[in-house]
């Protein structure tokens, strides 16, 4: 199955986000080997050059490192992964709060509602 991609933003950025999500959600473990670019591109139904670009961005951020002979791996640096998780969680919360305030919910109403879901 191909990856869910939206049409309004650059594809490589969405690939980066997808892989970041796979890292923080634990689908990839620290130190895991990543599939070759071509394989991953076919899986996502995207162009291999675009996947390559996404890999370059991830390498730059340190989340992925490449070993010249044996391929690409997820970082072993768990602190980096925790920090990534925190920043993504923050973005989710911010997004949620912005949207729910737009429809006129007060802080108390937000808390009450959230509590219903946190059982």
């Amino acid at each position, binding site marked *: 199955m*191909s990856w869910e*991609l939206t*049409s*309004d*933003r*650059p*594809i*490589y*950025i969405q690939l980066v986000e997808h892989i970041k999500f796979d890292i923080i959600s634990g689908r990839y473990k620290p130190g895991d080997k990543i599939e070759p670019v071509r394989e991953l*591109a*076919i899986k996502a*139904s*995207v*162009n*291999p*050059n*675009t996947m390559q*670009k996404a890999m370059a961005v991830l390498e730059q951020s340190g989340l992925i490192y490449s070993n010249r002979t044996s391929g690409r791996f997820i970082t072993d640096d768990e602190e980096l992964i925790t920090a990534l998780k925190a920043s993504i969680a923050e973005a989710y919360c911010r997004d949620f709060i912005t949207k729910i305030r737009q429809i006129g919910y007060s802080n108390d109403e937000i808390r009450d509602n959230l509590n219903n879901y946190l059982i």
Partner: protein
Amino acid sequence: MTPLLECRTLTKKYGNTLALNNVSFTLERGRIVGLLGPNASGKTTLIKLINGLLTPTSGEVLINGMRPGIESKLSVAYLPDTMFLNDWMNVKQLINYYSDFYSNFDVDKAYDMLKRLNIDEKMRVKAMSKGTKEKVQLILTMSRNADLYCLDEPIGGVDPASRDYILSTILNNYNENGSILISTHLISDVEQILDDVLMIRFGCLYIHKTVDEIREEKHMSVDELFREVFRC
């Protein structure tokens, strides 16, 4: 390295009709390029010029540095936008015909793709639906180990599931030294697999950019951009 394809101030007139007007661009190796434009914008003319089926009124086309000719026909695999197969032949005969004709035809690859798309090798062209004919033509074209694949409207009559398979076949088959030029109106279907977009408008080259450049600059998909540029 010489570019795979180079068009220099390419112009084609049919009588008084200007089909292509001063088009220049270079196509690098290892790219999947979408050739986009509304009806009558010059897409098929451009592809025919690349394949030497038409001669330019002025300007030139170079494939691997050479003008279209016998050598370029081996390195370019062309899928026309019309039905071109003899309808009395069956699939097996077509494959033999192709492998006889093109020294770079990969018979195993062809049978493998036929199997994946559930097409019987004994089926005659005459008995095929529009979609099946298109699939067979595409399989024959993609089974050649060429440098440049020119696909003119390859997936128009094909159902969405087979379309997905065909697009993944394209992704699977092209290599770092080869490129694929796809002319299509089904932009949203192919957008994800494209590197670059060539958009032509009234015979002129309007945009030559990567898909992600377009998305970054315009904050819209190539499909949306097309609908905006060519709004009727």
